[in-house]
Structure formats: C-alpha cells, structure tokens
C-alpha cells in the first residue's frame, strides 16, 4: 500500500514543551485523514512538519514513499487555520499569486483559477477583494488557493472553524466534491467531531504529542461500545461521584472528567433511578444527565478526559 504520508518516531521539542514525541503515523493515499486533539496536542506541529514549515528534532517523514524534501512537498497544498488570503487582493489575484508560488502561471493559472472559483461558488466574486467576502467564501477561497497547483496531498487545518453550521455543511460538500475530482489525500484537523465523522475515513486522536487512538470511525467508537451517560451533580466532586457510582448495578465503567462523570453500561437508562438515589443519599443533587450512544466526542472524552469542543480557540503555534 502506498502511503501519502509516513511519519516515524517524529519528535519535536520546544524550549520546555514536548510538541511531538516519538510520533508515528501513516496516511494512505487518496484517503481523508482526520487529526483530532485538544490544544497543544501537537496537531499543528505535525502539520507544520509535514508541510515543511518546521523540522523535527528526531524521526523521519516520507511523502509518497520518499523522504520529504522540497520537491515532494510541492505536492502538498495547505490551507491553514486562518483564511490565509490577502484581503486587499481580489479572489482571482489571490489565486494567481498563490499559484505562482508553485510555478503555476500565465493562462494555465488563470484557467485553473476560474475553474476553482466556479467550482467553489466564487465565480461571481472573482474580481471582488477578498476582504469583502463572507466568512464561508473566504474559507472557500483559502481552499481554492491550496488547490491551485493540483496538490496530491491537501492539508486543511481547522477548515470550518468559525463558520456557521450551514456554511460548515456547505463546506463539507465542497470538500467532498473537490476530493472526488482530484483524488488527492486530505489531512484535516478539526475540533468538530461531526466534521470528522462526516468527512474522515480514518481518524487519529492526539494528546500531548502522541496518538492516543487511531482508526476508522467505527473502530474508534468500538473503544466505547456501550451507552454513555454523562452526569453532572452538585457539589459534584468527580472522585466522590466515582466512589458513589462505582459498583452500581448496570454501570460497567465510571470515568471522572472535569465536567462530571461518564458512565458506560449496556442499559443505563433503566439503571438511572437507582444511581440518582445513591447520589442523593450521598448528598449529591443531579443537575444534568444525558444518555447517548457513543460518538467520537465520547470516545475522545473517554480517552483524554477532556472535551474537544471546550478545548478553546486554537492559537497559532509558536
């Protein structure tokens, strides 16, 4: 099997912070690979190393089977977290400029730009300065910029962050369309589990510079496998809650999180009355309770003890 990306033992240490540690990853060609993880998990560092923006302190990286170098990195198209477009330039100018960086120029560039603009729904805006575009349009333009040179690997860092749900869904459709046409490999990072679920064929959960779980959507969900109940009570000291709930009938596993506890079990809904009673007897008042089938979020929460959505705004890597 040909891998678009093969990372082996990548380590990147900043002054007093380990961004990546002995990190290994293989991304199959033509697949959509999602990187999920909280802030500081090392996603952006990994992307920067893949894009050639940083060098690892240790480890190797191969792109399409060859050691990463200038030549094969030119096969990568990247759309950073930010829109990464020049606001004063028109859509067309932005595309022509970024195309030129990859040696795409002249009529070919213009044709490609028109094509991308039309396909991404920016045709009517081709001569509009990008500062006047909506958030979604800017994202699409940023994506178009990354696609100007017909890359074999597309890296999208938080492609839909900050977009409203409708625009986000539209963006997903656009991405799917682009990928179906280009047959490129897509690596994306996201906070949105539903985005990963909607787009990614394979997902890696990252935390503290290492992969904590990797696999397809199903493979990951199987890590949780049962119903999950999230419970929040007052005063709600997590360790105390775990002590109370552990051993309760129907609860296979209790995990303390910073937001309460997560319980796993086969039929938690039926057992909830008994659990509530036990809590009440121990001075806890349940204020929030939800029972759901496991999602990626649940998997992540279970694996890392942290909610991805509440990981906060992603700051640029230093």
């Amino acid at each position, binding site marked *: 099997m040909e891998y678009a990306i093969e990372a082996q033992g990548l380590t990147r240490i900043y002054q007093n912070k380990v961004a990546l540690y002995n990190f290994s990853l293989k991304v199959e060609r033509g697949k959509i690979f999602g990187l999920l993880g909280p802030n500081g998990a090392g996603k952006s560092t990994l992307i*920067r190393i893949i*894009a*050639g*923006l*940083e*060098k690892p302190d240790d480890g190797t990286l191969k792109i399409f089977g060859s050691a990463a170098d*200038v*030549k094969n*990195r*030119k096969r*990568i198209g*990247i*759309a*950073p*977290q*930010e*829109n*990464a*477009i*020049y*606001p004063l330039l028109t859509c067309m100018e932005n595309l022509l400029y*970024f195309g030129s*960086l*990859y040696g795409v120029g002249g009529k070919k560039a213009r044709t490609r730009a028109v094509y991308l603009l039309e396909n991404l729904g920016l045709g009517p805006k081709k001569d509009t300065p990008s500062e006047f575009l909506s958030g979604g349009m800017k994202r699409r333009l*940023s994506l178009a*910029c*990354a696609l100007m040179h017909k890359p074999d690997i597309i890296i999208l860092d938080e492609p839909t962050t900050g977009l409203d749900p409708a625009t986000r869904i539209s963006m997903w459709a656009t991405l799917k369309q682009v990928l179906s046409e280009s047959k490129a490999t897509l690596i994306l990072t996201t906070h949105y589990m539903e985005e990963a679920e909607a787009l990614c064929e394979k997902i890696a959960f990252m935390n503290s510079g290492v992969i904590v779980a990797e696999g397809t959507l199903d493979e990951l969900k199987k890590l949780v496998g049962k119903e999950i109940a999230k419970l929040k009570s007052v005063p709600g000291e997590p360790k105390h809650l775990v002590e109370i709930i552990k051993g309760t009938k129907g609860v296979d596993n209790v995990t303390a999180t910073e937001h309460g506890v997560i319980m796993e079990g086969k039929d938690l809904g039926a057992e909830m009355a008994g659990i509530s009673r036990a809590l009440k007897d121990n001075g806890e008042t349940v204020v929030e309770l939800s029972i759901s089938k496991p999602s990626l979020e649940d998997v992540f929460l279970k694996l890392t003890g942290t909610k991805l959505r509440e990981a906060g705004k992603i700051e*640029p890597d*230093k």
Partner: protein
Amino acid sequence: MRERRTLLLLIAAPLLVLFIISAIFNESLAQKGGAMGVCDLDRTNASTLLVNGIRNASEIQDYGIGSDCGTKLIRDVNGGRLSAGLIIPNGFEQGIQMGETQNITLILDNSRFQVSPTLEAFVKAAVQETDQKIGESFILSVWQKLNGASQDLGNLHGNINETRNRTAAMRARLNLTSESLKALNISGVRDDINLANNSTQETRATLSEAKDNLTQIESNFADYDQTLNETENDLVQINDSLANISGYIAGMKAGVNCSDPVSIAYCLSLDQLDAKVKNASQTVEIRLEKVHKARADLIAANLTIQIFKAKIDAAQNSTYEAEAKIADLNGFVDDLERNRNQAIQNIDEVKASLDEIDGNTYHLEDIISSSQKQIAEVTSRSPASVISPMLVSTNRIFGQRPFFNFMLPSLLPLIMMFIALFLASTSLVREKHGGTLTRIYAAQVNKFEFAAIKVISYTIVLIPEAILLALVASLLYNAFPIQDTNTWMMVMGTMVLLIFTFVAGGVLIAIHSDSESTAFLASLVIGLPLLFLSGLLFPFEFMPPVVALLGTLMPLSQAVIGMQSVILYQSPQMATSLALILYGSIFTLLAGASIRK
C-alpha cells in the same frame, strides 16, 4: 505580556535608549564643535595664535598653505564634507601690525544646525581671545614704547637739567664775559690813559709855565707896588701943595670984602681957583684912594697868585699822582686784557657748551622724533583695530534658508525608515498570523528568494510614499527645485535605497517577531537608537569618537548623509549608496537565513 520577546523589548528598549544616550553624552560637557578646516596662508604668530585658539575648542583639519587650499576648503564645505572652514589671508599679521582690521571669512555649513552655531561661536570666541591677546600684545608694545619714550623723556629730563645747568653756567660765564667785555675798550682806555698821561705832563708844564708867569706877575706886582707907592707919595705931595695953595687963596681972600663988588670978581676968581684947587685935591684924593685900592687889589692879587701858585704846586703834585694812577691804570688795563682773554676763553667754553647743547638738541630731536613716531604709530591705529584687530565675517553657504530646509534631508529618511520598518515588520507579522506566510513557506519557496521578493515588493509599495514625501518637500518646503530632474533622480534613488534597506530590516524584524506588537516594539528599539545615532538629534561631533564612528556607519546615518549630499550639496556620495545597498542586502540575507523551515 506572555510574549517573551515583547516583554524583553519593553524592558530592553528604555534601557537601550538610556545606554545609547549615556554613550553619546558620556564624555565631558566640553564638547567639541566638529572638524573645521583651516587654510592658513599667513603662517605667522598671529595666525598660529588664532588657529591654536580654535584648536582648543574644535578639531582642526589643516589644509596646508598651497595656493589652492582655500578653493579646496570651500569645495569641501560646499560639498558637505566639512562643517566649517576658515581662510586666513596672506599678510594677516602684517595687516594687524599696520593697524588694519583683518577680515577673516568663516565659511559655514549652516545646514548643520546643531553644530554650525557652536563652530561659529568657537571661532568668534577664538577670534575674540586672539583679539584680546593681540590687543594685549599691542598694548604691551605700546606700554613698552611709552616706557621707552618715558625713559627717553626721563633721560631728556636729565639732559634738560644738565642743559639748564650748563645754560646757567653759561649765563654766569656770559655775565662775567659781559662784565669783562664791558670794560673791554682797552686800546681806547690805553689811548685815553696815554692822552691823560700826556695831558698830565702838559698840564704840569703848563702849571710850571703858569707858575713862572705868576712869579713874573708877582715880580711885576712888586714893581707895580713900588710905583703905586711912588704915585701915592706924589699924590700926597700934590695934595699937600694943593692944601697950601688953598691956604694962600684962603689968605688972599681973607682981607678982601668979597661982598664989595670990586672984590667980588676977585673973590670969585679966588673961589674959582680954590674950587679948582679943591677939585684937584679931590681928584688927587680919588686917585690916592684908587692907588690905595690898587695896592689892596695888588695885595689881593698877589695873595691870589700865591694861592694860585700853591694850587699849581698842588696841581703839579696831582699830576704826579695822576701819573702814578695812570701807571696803576695800565696795570688795570693789563688786568682787563687778562680778563678779556679769560672772557674769550669763557666764550670758547660757552661755545663748546653750546655745541654740546646743540648736540643735545639733535639728540632731543631724535628722542622727540622717535617718541612722535612711536606715538604716531600708536595713534595712527584706529581704536577698533586695537580692540578688534580681527573681524570674522560668516559666510553661510546656505544663506538664510529656513531651518526646516536643513531638517528635511534628515527627516525624509527618518520618516521613511520608520514607515518602512513598521510597514515591513508588522505587515509580515500580520501575514504570519493571517496564514498567508504559512502558505508561502509551504510552497517551498527558496527562503532567500522569498526574503528578497518581500523586500522588493515592500520597497515598490513604498515608492509612491517616497515620491509623495519628495513632492511635498519640493513644493511646500522648497527643499529642491521641482524642475530639477537630476536632483529628483538622485533624491528618489537615495529614497529607494533607504527604503530597500529598512524594508529589509523590517522583514528581518518580522521574521523574528511573533506578534505585531513585538514587531512594532522591535522596530522602535532598532529605529530609536538609529535616530539617536543618526546625527539628527545629537550631532556626531558631540559624540565620543567611537560612538560617532558607529553612528556614522549606521544605515539611517548613511541615508541621512546621502540625502543631505543630494538635496543640500548636490554632490551624491556613492559610498552612502553602496552602504545602503550593502545593509539592505545583508538584512535581506539575514532575513532569509532566519526563516525557519
């Protein structure tokens, strides 16, 4: 504040500014005024005194004494290579000595507004000091001359006293001479004496003769007395005869009646006869009285003769005495002659004294003449030339142009420096944050190529700004003529180079900055020291040599020097352009090398 570099810059910036300013002003306050060119064509004590006076306050650049040193000096001042120049003309000292106020010209580059007043003040102070020294020297020489004159006059005073004494002595001698000369008619005297002597002898002979005559008269008188005696006897006898006749007549009448008419006639005849006889007797009486009288007179005459004779004897004796006196007189004349000789000797001495006095008068004349000459020499000088033997006229090469015109060549690079630094650094950092830079880096663009393209693109972006600034400088502030294409080209060339340099600096800053605030602060931290060291606020001449050298080498300083050379001096300096190109290239290379991949 979590950004370490920003925090570091915030802490470092004030300290850096403090260190730079302390480095600039770390030397004593006895600031130098910068290099001043001197073309001393006179090379005399006075000119050296002036030059040394200036040297105490300012560095001197000696332009030698060649005939073209003045031209070279003026060219260098006009070309901005020298802040000021002083030309001391040939004949400078001689003119001062002749009492002519010497006008020396200070050629001043008044575009160096921080330095030029100081240099002018230094020169004026040096001129004043030299004036004072020359004035003191002159007054001292006047004092010496006056002292000499006073000494001469003192000597003159002694000479006058001596002359006066001599004159008094001369006068005394002349008096003596006069006295002597008064009695000087010696020959006359001698003649008179001889004459007197002869007269005395003649007198004595005459007296002897007179005495003989008197003796003869006396003898005659004796004869005459005898005659008188005989006459008297005769007269007495006659008188007696007449008395007898009168008795006979009286007897003849006595018996006659004379009243009888016959007798009357008789009687009358008798009376007549008697009357006749009585008359005759009366005549005889008278004659007798006369004889008596004659005899008395004769006796008196004889007595007189005796007296005469005695007198003649006395006179004769006197003549002897006179002879003796004349003999004495001859002795006197001899004395007189001696006196005369003495007087002649005295006169000779007086002549000698007069010759000496005459000589002294020539000496006095010399002294007076010398004193007059010295006084004339002193007084011929105008008071102004004594008080100010030198006058400095300042030739400001830029005339009375507005102060702002001199600032513009520094302000334009300064403004452009900050604009270029801020624009390049913050824009590039913004690109970092905007993600475009990530995209560009990801495109595997050669980092040096990327840095160069960024520098060039920002430089091009700033060129309209430079043109606008140059237009404003030209149109509003008359920094240079709008129609002067050559200057325009040079100004724009310099502007483009400095923009290139500082854009490259800004790109370098941006590469190392994580945020716009860091980039902004870093630009300030770099820009402010460059400003302080550019010579705009604190002139190089006031800085310690090492700091001044460093300051001069700084890119902003090079840009300022280049702009000044173009706008003010119309003599573009290739060195500054090359320096800016070098700086810009180094910054670009450093920026490229600093890009992390």
